[in-house]
């Protein structure tokens, strides 16, 4: 029995070692994906700290007092934030230009000087979760320093009262506050405070999630990203499979039979492209409708932009699928290569996790994939409500990708299937 099992195992091993697709899937794919995720996650999780992006934060000072200027300087001094003075900050966050903005209303300095709880507005983009965590962890101690310990203590006391903490607990908290009169920014950063527990109001901070249209929640942000990401990745898989019908037909002989008709030629490839794009569009519509109903993703905020962008995405994905099909000799080769490329492109292009969380160099490399441009367009529409003009760049890039991959697919088709060998 063991001997027979060994004979079978050796035979399978021999077949496996002679199958380049199986080898690539077993060894190359894990290495490639491991590299992509490793590069992304070591940067996100900190690593040596040098590669972590500073969070861009807009600062709009409507007060102009020494106190507001001090707050600005304090924030600018933070290692984790890249703070710049801007105007129209709410709109910038809403459009996805900046992940967050701090608005200091008129009267801030007066409130601080009078020992009153000052009011500050924080505009946030809930889709940029990691940026919000970093910002919150940095903002709390800075606000406390800017407003002064007494005020901070008072703010904390009021906040705890408003939240109904028992007197004993409030006293304990005040005593703890006194023992650490000057909160440490670095320790705050390690324990991010994301304003979810109502503590923001206690600090005088009015938090407003402004991106995401009618449903600016973190859940909806996740849904918008997941639906767009999965749609693009599955579109690539689906359309590579559609392109693979060329290889099926070549193998079965039907392609040759079709070629033997008078007007076949390039019309066959064009027909394949139309079929592939149509399947892609139906696939996208199906997933978006599902995402809209099940996850409340605002997919139809910009219907015209959605249609044009989806045509561009389907065109680029179809060109990609057809190009792979004419380059591969067999269906098996196509399946192996497409899986390797699509999973890598999806990981690098933001289909699996938002590119916003990875360093700039990773984002730049990611934009060599069509996934990244497709995601930019969909996120622009779904989350930031961008219209056709707002996502013109991704659309143009995708049409460009469609044209280039389509041209190469055409060339490959002519060379392989139309040239008289």
């Amino acid at each position: 029995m063991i001997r027979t099992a060994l004979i079978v195992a050796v035979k399978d091993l021999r077949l496996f070692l002679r199958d380049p697709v199986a080898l690539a899937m077993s060894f190359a794919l894990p290495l490639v994906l491991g590299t992509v995720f490793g590069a992304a996650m070591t940067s996100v999780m900190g690593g040596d700290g040098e590669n972590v992006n500073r969070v861009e934060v807009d600062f709009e000072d409507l007060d102009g007092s020494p106190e507001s200027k001090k707050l600005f300087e304090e924030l600018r001094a933070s290692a984790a934030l890249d703070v710049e003075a801007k105007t129209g900050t709410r709109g910038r966050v809403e459009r996805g230009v900046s992940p967050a903005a701090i608005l200091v209303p008129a009267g801030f300095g007066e409130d601080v000087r009078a020992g009153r709880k000052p009011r500050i507005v924080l505009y946030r983009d809930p889709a940029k979760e990691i940026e919000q965590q970093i910002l919150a962890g940095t903002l709390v101690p800075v606000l406390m320093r800017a407003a002064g310990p007494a005020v901070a203590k008072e703010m904390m006391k009021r906040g705890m009262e408003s939240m109904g903490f028992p007197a004993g607990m409030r006293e304990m908290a005040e005593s703890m506050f006194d023992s650490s009169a000057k909160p440490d920014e670095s320790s705050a950063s390690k324990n991010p405070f994301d304003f979810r527990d109502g503590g923001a109001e206690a600090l005088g901070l009015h938090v407003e999630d402004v991106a995401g249209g009618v449903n600016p929640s973190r859940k909806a942000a996740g849904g918008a990203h997941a639906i767009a990401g999965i749609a693009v990745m599955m579109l690539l898989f689906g359309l590579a499979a559609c392109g693979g019908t060329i290889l099926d037909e070549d193998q079965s002989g039907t392609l040759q039979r079709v070629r033997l008709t008078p007007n076949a030629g390039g019309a066959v490839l064009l027909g394949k492209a139309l079929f592939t794009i149509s399947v892609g569009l139906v696939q996208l519509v199906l997933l978006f409708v599902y995402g809209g109903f099940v996850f409340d993703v605002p997919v139809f905020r910009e219907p015209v932009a959605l249609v044009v962008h989806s045509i561009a995405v389907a065109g680029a994905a179809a060109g990609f699928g057809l190009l792979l099909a004419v380059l591969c000799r067999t269906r098996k080769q196509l399946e192996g290569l497409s899986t390797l490329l699509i999973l890598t492109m999806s990981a690098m292009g933001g289909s699996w996790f938002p590119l916003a969380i990875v360093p700039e160099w990773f984002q730049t490399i990611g934009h060599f994939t069509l996934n990244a441009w497709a995601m930019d367009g969909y996120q622009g529409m779904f989350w930031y409500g961008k219209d056709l003009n707002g996502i013109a760049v991704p659309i143009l890039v995708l049409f460009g990708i469609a044209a280039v991959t389509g041209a190469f697919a055409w060339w490959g088709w002519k060379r392989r299937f139309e040239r008289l060998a």
Partner: protein
Amino acid sequence: MQSPSNSSSPAIEVAGLVKSFGPARAVDGLSLVVQRGESLGFLGPNGAGKTTTIRILSTLAAPTAGRVSVLGLDPARDASDLRGRIGVVPQEIALYDGLTGAENLTFFGRMHGLRGLDLRGRVGRALDQAGLADRAQDRVGTYSGGMKRRLNIVAALLHDPELVFLDEPTVGIDPQSRNHVFELVDRLRARGTTLVYTTHQLGEVERLCDRIVILDRGRTIAEGSLEELRQGIAASGSAVERIHAGKRTAEALELLRAAGIDARVEEERPDLEQVFLTLTGHALRDEGAG
């Protein structure tokens, strides 16, 4: 779409055809003439150059050297025009399993430019000819091997081609389906369609073809009717040694009869298989270019 042709030029004229794949010559100086309305059996062992020649004649490959004319056209230059006038029955079942028989025929008919009632009529007749009218709406994937073979043939005939290449059209089917295929081919012959029939079933060539060309190593090694091939072998003295037609046969016969033995002389005629093996040898051939 067969058009009555007044042309008396041959359907196929090939002179000095060469097709090389790197250093290997699949076809090596082949010359061939097929008259209109003729049914030609195209024979040869594996790798003899049959498939390569048919690919060149049917516009799928370009020759390395030589002159080729099919229905008066150059297959490499006039491929599109020629494709509308020839039919190719491939060796493999080149049909879409996911489509019904009628859908397959309709698709290939449309690709040949047929439309509307004309197309519908042709599809119906083709299904009748293939004996598949009652299975027209079933997916081809559910058909038996013989049914697929028959459909494979009629799919190449929808546009009424003047010249049909049949590449081993009866591989792997039962005697009933084979007989049905023979009837289809007979009908084509009766209509005056020129046929080039490739097969390893030599009996089929004996039954269906007017003339036979035997290829080996890319060259024609014998050509003519079956009778001419037999005579050629007998004359060469290389073939059937069991035929003893010498001067002394008559004397021996008389002696036997005198001894009361009922003796007679019977001539043993070589069949096509014997002719084929005599000409191409008994050595095994590996699969090659064609």
